[in-house]
């Protein structure tokens, strides 16, 4: 190799590396420090992909609504203080799409580069499990508002900074099993159609186990496992039709759920059968006449159409409809209660007008009981880091004349009835027959 060419090669290479490093530096200094007297919250939820429409965007909208309303002091008592503890709230919104590895990177960016004071977010269970250790490591108050995996507090056994203000999917399915047993006592055969990934696999495992415990004489006649996002269920519907169950359980959500209802309805799958949709509340406004009256819907808690009447809900629901032209579904409610929980915790510990520290926030939130549009939220499990709330199921009724959908025969199951106690694995608790459950 001639030395002349090689020397210029040297220089070019080194200059390329230097250029890259200075690009990095430029990007890092471009980020604002959060020492601007505002309370900065990072909100991470799906803004693209299949989960954006049913979950991510309603949640993001709810966050925008809450932050704006809080900054203007418009939220009813006890949240009348401006922003958080008198400080204006600044929100950084991030897309949760792209996979868990990327989300861990973005989480660190949020905390270390953009210096947020708290993080609220995460719908996907995979993202929650990946972020959980990082939240503890970086010492930033992190609230999981929606993810349904029961393993969050197995991965982080003694949380200090990590909280979940929503319920996991185990309680949905235990409550569903109770509801079906009470509302459809003659069900003998059940079938399943779930999206073939963690959410669907766990939902069916929990429901089948719980139902077989409550009604041991029942039998599973068919299990269908289409791919997530498959959209067309011709073969699955045929298989379900042929097996002729009394009840079909599905944890489908979003476009898949609506497609299933449409295709199944057109093929008479739901004639003389009951369907349980554990995430069905998000589709209530879209179903119209396509879904049979009597379909059992769940909302993962007292949210959306299941929400109670209280001052906060009387403000939240009309404000959301006015701004976003659609009713708030359960992701919107869950985001709202995460933000309100953060506010309540921060204001409990800090002196008025001062910037709440991370330790003040986590001490305030642990074990807190606070009000939200969905009712009272008790942070009562996992040493005060996991919320306890009731779960409701009801039957869908559509009035063709008025075009309105309502829920009838609503039954609510208290948290103490359907949540396994701390330290007990859900499967073990179900198999043992729900010992210690306090149902009314």
């Amino acid at each position: 190799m001639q030395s002349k060419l090689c020397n210029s090669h040297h220089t070019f290479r080194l200059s390329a590396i230097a250029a890259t490093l200075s690009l990095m530096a430029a990007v890092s200094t471009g980020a604002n420090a959060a020492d601007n007297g505002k309370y900065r919250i990072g909100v991470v939820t799906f803004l693209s992909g299949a989960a954006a429409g049913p979950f991510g965007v309603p949640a993001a909208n709810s966050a925008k609504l809450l932050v704006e309303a809080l900054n203007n002091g418009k939220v009813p008592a006890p949240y009348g203080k401006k922003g958080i503890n008198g400080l204006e709230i600044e929100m950084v919104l991030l897309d949760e799409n792209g996979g868990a590895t990327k989300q861990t990177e973005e989480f660190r960016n949020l905390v270390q580069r953009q210096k947020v004071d708290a993080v609220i977010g995460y719908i996907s269970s995979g993202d929650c499990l990946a972020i959980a250790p990082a939240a503890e490591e970086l010492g930033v108050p992190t609230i999981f508002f929606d993810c349904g995996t029961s393993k969050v507090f197995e991965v982080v056994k003694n949380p200090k900074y990590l909280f979940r203000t929503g319920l996991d999917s185990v309680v949905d399915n235990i409550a569903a099993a109770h509801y079906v047993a009470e509302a459809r006592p003659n069900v003998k055969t059940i079938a399943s159609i779930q999206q073939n990934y963690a959410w669907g696999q766990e939902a069916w495992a929990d429901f089948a186990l719980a139902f077989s415990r409550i009604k041991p004489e029942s039998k599973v006649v068919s299990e269908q496992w289409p791919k997530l996002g498959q959209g067309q269920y011709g073969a699955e519907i045929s298989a379900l039709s042929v097996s002729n169950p009394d009840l079909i359980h599905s944890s489908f959500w979003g476009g898949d759920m609506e497609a299933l209802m449409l295709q199944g309805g057109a093929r008479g799958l739901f004639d003389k059968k009951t369907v349980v949709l554990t995430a069905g509340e998000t589709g209530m406004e879209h179903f119209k006449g396509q879904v049979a009256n009597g379909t059992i819907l769940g909302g993962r808690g007292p949210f959306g159409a299941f929400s109670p009447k209280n001052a906060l809900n009387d403000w939240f629901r009309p404000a959301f409809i006015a701004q976003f032209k659609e009713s708030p579904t359960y992701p919107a409610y869950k985001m709202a209660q995460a933000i309100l929980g953060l506010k309540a915790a921060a204001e409990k510990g800090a002196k008025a007008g001062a910037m709440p520290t991370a330790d003040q926030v986590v001490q305030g939130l642990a074990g807190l009981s606070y009000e939200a549009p969905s009712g009272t939220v008790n942070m009562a499990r996992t040493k005060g880091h996991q919320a306890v709330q009731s779960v409701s199921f009801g039957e869908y009724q559509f009035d063709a004349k008025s075009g309105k959908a309502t829920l009838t025969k609503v039954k609510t199951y208290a948290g103490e009835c359907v949540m396994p106690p701390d330290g007990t694995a859900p499967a073990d608790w179900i198999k043992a027959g729900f010992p210690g459950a306090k149902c009314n």
Partner: protein
Amino acid sequence: MSLRKFFASPTEPALLLAAAVFAAGAWVMPAWLAFLLTLALAKALVVLGVVIQMRAGLVSFGQALFYCIGGYGVGLASQYLGVGDAFALLALGTVAATLMALACGWLLTRYREIFYAMLTLALSMILYGVLVKSSALGSTDGFNVSPPSFLGWVPEGDARKRTLYLLTVFAAGAVALGFHRFMVSSLGRVTEAVRENEIRVEYLGLSPQRMLFANYVLAACVSGLGGGLTALASGHIDPDMAIWTTSGEFVFIAILGGTGHVVAPFIGAIVFSVLRTFAIQEAPNTWQMTLGITLLALILFLPKGLWSLVDRSKPEVSA
């Protein structure tokens, strides 16, 4: 032994110098930057696997297969075999990926062009399907990888991420050096000949398939290492590591950096990470479009990748 004889070409001391600069930066740069670079350099190793095959004239749309096997090898060994040492874990992940390549490579290297791309894609999607189906492995949630120890020493706090960063820089430097040696070796040179005209290589008495097979296994080995490092750094593995859009990302970075020099994938990976973080932050609703437009612009105006900007002095390709 004089220094001149020790290095195969002046590229090598430059590589070592660059690695040293990156390593020294560990104490100076902000933590989020070190983490970004750790993931970027680990990804660059996988991209290097794609580049190795591209130099042979084959585009692999399924390199994520080995990335995923490397990651899951580390994760499973840590979780179920109780292996705690970072070096042992990485070795296990890399060996797993290499074994897979040895098993499939001979069949795959019978194909060229589109069929090769599609078959590699199919293999990676089969792994994806198997992982998603397996609820024992956590299905789409995957599982976490506990922080490793380094030959007995367990770092705490800041030192933990810093040590992983240094490990990644060290691995990247070693692989870059090794790959550079490979490129200037006879096997490396013949591989390029295979890309140009396979039949003539046959006339020379060599077996192109054997060359391609060697390249395939080498690429898998390096990609498995990249996957293992990612698993250790991010602390989490899931089946998305095997999905075809992940492979698409590796191909994107390969094009971004170019195939002309061993450093190109590393530069490409770093630029891509910065680009993507920026795109997500500034345009959370259109970051995919931003990436797509960038890719198109690259292909139209910079077909040899970013490296061609740096490399204007060299009139011809390679090494």
